[in-house]
């Protein structure tokens, strides 16, 4: 590559790198520095790991980490499995496939905040589901119905993620399936493959790259999402993103560095989780 072409590439990339390095990288780096005591534009700060030791001793943070991991992993696995199942169902239905694909796409672009509002109207103790269980005689009052919103487990959060992300994974899987899974399945069937073998060695390797990429996006999103737990969850235990925001806006300014530390924990944890997940997918995508 000559110098002229190199210069051209550098000029073309410069604005994008300005955003990725100058805004994203700066935000990440400054978050890390501020979690370690650095205070730009202020005198008299010193390096310290107090924010991190404070988090380790904090029971709320431990509960938060467990909740975040559990919700995110369940949402990702659930959306991947359900999404693949939905895609195979839609793919195998002869009539109405076009219509079903369109229905799947309806929820895709709707903001998560809208989904969260809807889930609270569906799943709260006086919500639609509770009214349905009343109608069929399962419950007799709102308090009879289990608390699914603002609960310790985060059922409504999980439901919102699954409602939004299952169709997303399904649409991605459908585009992969549309690239000719049927003839391969027929060949496998002719050669005597059982339904399970056809799924494991034909369908799965074909859709794993697409479904895997989609569920990495789901994993990253659900791990760091703020507005869904802010609407559907409770202040304690709350996911890491919510705790980070709480500490950031706390009137007690001494806990503020903990907000940055939680941001760093979020970034490191989600990266590690994605790395583990990608390794797992490699194994699933293998043809034997």
């Amino acid at each position, binding site marked *: 590559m000559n110098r002229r072409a190199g210069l*051209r590439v550098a000029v073309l990339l410069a604005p994008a790198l300005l955003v990725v390095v100058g805004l994203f990288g700066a935000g990440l780096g400054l978050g890390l520095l501020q979690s370690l005591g650095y205070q730009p534009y202020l005198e008299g700060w010193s390096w310290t790991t107090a924010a991190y030791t404070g988090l380790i001793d904090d029971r709320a943070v431990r509960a938060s980490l467990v909740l975040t991991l559990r919700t995110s992993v369940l949402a990702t696995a659930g959306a991947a499995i359900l999404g693949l199942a939905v895609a195979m*169902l839609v793919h*195998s239905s002869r009539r109405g496939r076009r219509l079903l694909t369109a229905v799947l796409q309806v929820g895709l672009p*709707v903001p998560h905040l809208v989904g969260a509002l809807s889930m609270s109207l569906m799943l709260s103790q006086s919500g639609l589901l*509770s009214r349905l269980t009343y109608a069929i005689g399962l419950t007799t009052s709102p308090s009879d119905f289990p608390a699914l919103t603002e609960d310790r487990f985060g059922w409504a959060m999980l439901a919102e993620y699954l409602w939004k992300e299952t169709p*997303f994974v399904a649409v991605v899987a459908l585009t992969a399936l*549309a690239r000719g899974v049927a003839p391969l399945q027929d060949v496998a069937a002719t050669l005597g493959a059982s339904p399970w073998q056809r799924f494991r060695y034909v369908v799965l390797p074909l859709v794993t790259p697409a479904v895997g*990429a989609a569920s990495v996006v789901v994993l990253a999103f659900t791990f760091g999402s703020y507005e869904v737990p802010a609407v559907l969850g409770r202040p304690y235990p709350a996911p890491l993103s919510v705790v980070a925001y709480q500490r950031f806006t706390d009137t007690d300014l001494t806990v503020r560095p903990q907000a940055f530390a939680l*941001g760093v924990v979020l970034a490191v944890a989600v990266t590690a989780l994605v790395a583990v997940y990608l390794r797992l997918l490699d194994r699933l995508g293998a043809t034997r």
Partner: protein
Amino acid sequence: MRRAVGAPLLVTGLVVAVLTPLVLLAVWAVTETWRYPALWPQAFDDRALRVVTDPGSTILPGLVTSAGIAATVAVVSCAIGLAAGRALGLHTFPGRGLVRFALLAPVIVPGITVSLGIQVVFIRYHLTDTVHGVVLAHLIPATPYATLVLAAAYTRLDTAFEDQARVLGAGPLRVLLHVTLPALRPALTVALMLTFLISWNEYVLTLLIGGGSVSTLPLLLFSAIGSGDTSVAAALAMVVSIPPLLFVGVTARALTGPGAGRNDGRADPGMHPGAGATLAGLGRA
């Protein structure tokens, strides 16, 4: 292909599960009273609809703010993406893998981490509580998607057409306007809509950088949810959802490709370039 016996039932369940939450919002938007344990509202009215369409309310300015920010983010990020996408799609250069990796990082790392860290700089340069500060913040998630969608489109661009135009005496700007952009138009349309949507749906970056002074629709919706007036919150949710739904209406074909409804087993030649990145963007939005 075989058809399972329970398939029609499963399909019905699927349609109900996908659509019920949205239908429920639409019903709540026109509800006057809907007391427990009724399964259907006792009385309907258009109060909530009048509240959200009242020109004197905060909703209309919020709509204008949201649309303005999202349109600016879409245009700027796609301009950036057109340049970077060209480098990634048409050139091989040392560090190309690293650039791709750097572009994926904002997709993985939560927005809250980045916005918490960068807020201090934005305060210093008087960018917090301003519309252009929020636009800058929204560029962080939008730029990678614009670049990835357009890079995929560039890999299919035949640069011989550009060379021909140059040989015939067209300047660089004319080549861009009359050759390159028309060739990239489908991908560019998708990239513009996708980045518009990412900005339109963004909540936490707007909250932390806008500081409550920049009231986009998601921020107004969040406070409406907190206020406890369910009908108004539901009506506002409809207002926030309509532009994204139009987006899917327009691009649905591009997303799944014209072959998605067929089963002829061939690879789909009409598959939109960058459809994978487009879908990934929707997963985030």
